[in-house]
């Protein structure tokens, strides 16, 4: 068991290194560097001046050397300075990550239970009217990316045209204090898209379990339908969706970027766009590391959870 996690951890570190190397080489492509040079000095620099500036700043050294240097600094906690914000990267990232953390927390609180509930209710009686309507609802939500639902919700709930104006169409105030008024739309927008996928996985898993022989055994033992669902089916049915929920995180990141820009909530996603849009190399690199780390850690948790939930695997080792 321990060996497994050590190996898993090794692969994780290797993946992180490969990914950061790719990001590093992509942001350090020659055109990007030239753009950086011009932005840092003036836009009408000659090619020769650019070359000289790049030489002075040490950008002409081999890529791997610079990557090793950057990685070394990164490990010791020196994340460099942002050219866009003119502040140390570590400061900015921490602050923005905290804001996004709050958003994610509420998204999870809304999304996961409702998705599981929809999935279980749909899957426990496969083919029934209840199943058909809930499944169609789930499919519809997976067809509604954040930039669609965000627009639709804003029009319905906060535009003058419809006139409901229940919620705020901007979440910029939520950065100081979350209220129902300013935070509902971003949370709802994000939760809706992710929810359908989890719900469908749960439904499929639940429907499969409900046709399993051991459910028939339980039924023919005289167990009531409610007990069958709660005691016999649920745990087996939740093994697959658990993995899915965890693997949703990398996907949610795209949502975070969209929603934060759509609702003007200046969190991590907003920061990423700023960094990419302004060719802010150090900031972009650190953002990538965070993103990759989140993905890899969730994958690890998903593995551990899978092993924990599934006794068939747990005891074997």
């Amino acid at each position, binding site marked *: *068991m321990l060996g497994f996690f050590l190996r898993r951890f090794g692969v994780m570190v290797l993946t992180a290194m490969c990914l950061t190397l790719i990001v590093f080489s992509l942001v350090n492509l020659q055109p990007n560097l030239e753009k950086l040079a011009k932005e840092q000095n003036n836009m009408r620099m000659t090619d020769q001046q650019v070359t000289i500036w790049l030489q002075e700043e040490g950008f002409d050294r081999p890529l791997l050397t610079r990557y090793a240097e950057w990685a070394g600094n990164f490990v010791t906690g020196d994340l460099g300075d942002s050219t866009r914000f003119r502040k140390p990267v570590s400061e900015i990232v921490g602050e923005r990550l905290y804001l996004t953390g709050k958003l994610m927390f509420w998204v999870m609180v809304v999304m996961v239970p409702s998705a599981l509930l929809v999935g279980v209710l749909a899957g426990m009686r496969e083919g029934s009217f209840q199943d058909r309507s809930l499944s169609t609802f789930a499919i519809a939500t997976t067809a509604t990316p954040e930039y669609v639902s965000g627009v639709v919700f804003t029009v319905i709930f906060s535009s003058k045209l419809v006139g409901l104006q229940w919620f705020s169409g901007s979440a910029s105030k939520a950065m100081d204090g979350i209220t129902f008024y300013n935070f509902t739309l971003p949370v709802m927008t994000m939760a809706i898209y992710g929810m359908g996928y989890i719900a469908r996985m749960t439904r499929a898993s639940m429907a499969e379990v409900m046709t399993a022989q051991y459910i028939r055994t339980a039924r023919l033992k*005289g167990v009531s339908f409610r007990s069958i669902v709660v*005691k016999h089916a649920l745990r087996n049915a939740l093994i697959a969706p658990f993995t899915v929920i965890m693997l949703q995180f990398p996907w949610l990141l795209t949502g975070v970027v969209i929603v934060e820009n759509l609702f003007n909530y200046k969190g991590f996603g907003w920061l990423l766009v700023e960094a990419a849009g302004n060719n802010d190399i150090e900031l972009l690199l650190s953002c990538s590391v965070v993103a990759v780390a989140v993905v890899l850690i969730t994958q690890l948790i998903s593995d551990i959870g899978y092993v924990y939930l599934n*006794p068939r695997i747990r005891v074997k080792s």
Partner: protein
Amino acid sequence: MAKWDYDGPILEIENLSISFFTRAGEIPAVMDFSCIVQPGEAMGLVGESGCGKSTVALGVMQDLGKNGKIVGGSIKFKGRDLNAMTVAELRDLRGSEIAMIYQEPMASLNPAMKIGRQLMEVPMIHEGMSEGDAYKLALEVVESVRLPDPERMLKSFPHQLSGGQQQRIVIAMALMSKPSLLILDEPTTALDVTVEAGIVDLVKDLGEKFGTSMLFISHNLGLVMDTCDRLCVMYSGEAVETGSIAEVFDRMQHPYTQGLFRSIPLPGADKNARPLIAIPGNFPLPHERPEGCNFGPRCTYFEEGRCNKGEIPMFPAGDRHETRCLKFQEIDWTAPPDVAVKAEKTQAGDVILKVDTLKKYYEVAASALFGGGEKRVVKANETVSLEAREAETLAIVGESGCGKSTLAKVLLGLETATEGHVLLENNDIAMTPIERRDTRTVADVQMVFQNPFDTLNPSHSIGNQIIRVLEKFKVGNSQAEREEKMLELLDLVKLPREFARRMPRQLSGGQKQRIGIARAFAGGPKVVVADEPVSALDVSVQAAVTELLMDIQRESRTTMLFISHDLSIVRYLADRVMVMYLGHVVEMGSTDQVFAPPYHPYTEALLSAVPIADTSVEKKRIVLDGDIPSAMNPPSGCPFQTRCRFKSEVPGGLCEREVPPMRTLTDGHQVKCHLEQEILDRMEPVIKVHAAE
């Protein structure tokens, strides 16, 4: 609802009809089915797949799913009509009064719930028992199904148990509330023969001990004979004959029952002198059932204008013996069958295949998920030696994990040997994987696979699949020639030529298996490995496919290695037999030598375990303890020592220390055992056939 007392029969089914409603319309699965089970009686339901026997069981349980519906008749349990019961009443009944056991023990147990919980649940629901009492009861019941270490069992998850243990747990679960009726749906089909014997033994004893009535569903007549008092033969949704075991087995009154008995290899059958007689034709699909008698089109006694007119009722044919045949009084049931052509016994030729001290070891990771880490060696084959001659049939017998499939893979070149030689006409192919074999060698060693539903690629037409084989074996010079050859092969396996254009899904199991045979013989092979070629087929089809295989082999003088766990069929068709256990050859000799004492202790147990559907046969009961050890972790010394009943007869714990050497007893009869010659000589035959009455 408390259990109530009732003097009459436990179960009365009257004119039951069950249909499934699909988009294609109503499909009748069971029609006009009646039977009565008295208290303490065991009733067998026998028939081929699709005959409706399992549907009857589910009908009794009132668990037919969304599409199934009882469309006529009544099912009375202790005098109360189950059809009229509410959901809540049924729930009270299920598990407490009627319990059911099915085919796949692993699938029947909840993988995420400890066994104890699953057992305790029954009395806690039905009798409102406290957790402590339920636990005590569970311990008791687990002990009564003869499982070792009950406390540990209750704490385990299902996957930690072997198949045999799981099935015992399922039985224990069914017995937790001491039901009046136990329904067993093919409870041993997924298990090995020696394990099956243990379960059958247990079921019989428990039935006697608790006085439980049983409804035992099986396709195996021998198994029903071993366990039941009465039986009911079903065909295509109808009961065709019902009566006591003795009546039906010895005084059958229906042509289908007769056909069944003639198509299974009983001890007296012989492939040359008394060949099996297959029932002609195929099982009708539910929507293709004929007018009148369902069996009519396949029946030798069929009479136009009589058998295909109107409904045919059950006729009384003796004491609680009924038959659904119009002509049962006219048919001479004692007349011997028209034996087709008696074949000459073929003379074996030169040695074609010689395997010499072959070893095959696998290295596997200790656990699949956490791969890597420690590696374990699975010794799939240990010093296997054999010789097979031209036109000879060598049977390889053994249960799961005995290494017979690995041996086949090495012969075919799908795996290479770890050590030893495989000589195909003096050409050593043990270390040559299939990619490096020349076309001739590849075509020379071919295989017939076990599972007919898996043996043909569902995406390609039959004709194309056979032509591809011919292309690969470089048979024929042009496409037209190959086409012609393909049609000839279809003739050879007695299938109509139109089948060339069909897709595999349009074929029945038996037909697919025929295509598999045509494919194996396409390149004129010297050796054909047949891996349980008929075990997945229905009884009546088995005989036809077996005969076909034998005929083609006789014609082409091919050497056949017939892999099987079914000793009846082996005795019927093999010239020589090789018994394997956990990678070792434990006994080898001519068929007569192996089936007569002295036996290897394992062969003896195996012989005793195979159910034989013949009332004149008397078997010695030898039930092995426990399950087959895992090949990953074999016992020390003799592989069979953990289950051997003679172990104590060998002094000094020799069996645990040393693998016995292969000993030659008489001419060509070899046994791998430490037992003294004198003890071997004292062995009695397991199967005794009484003289006919």
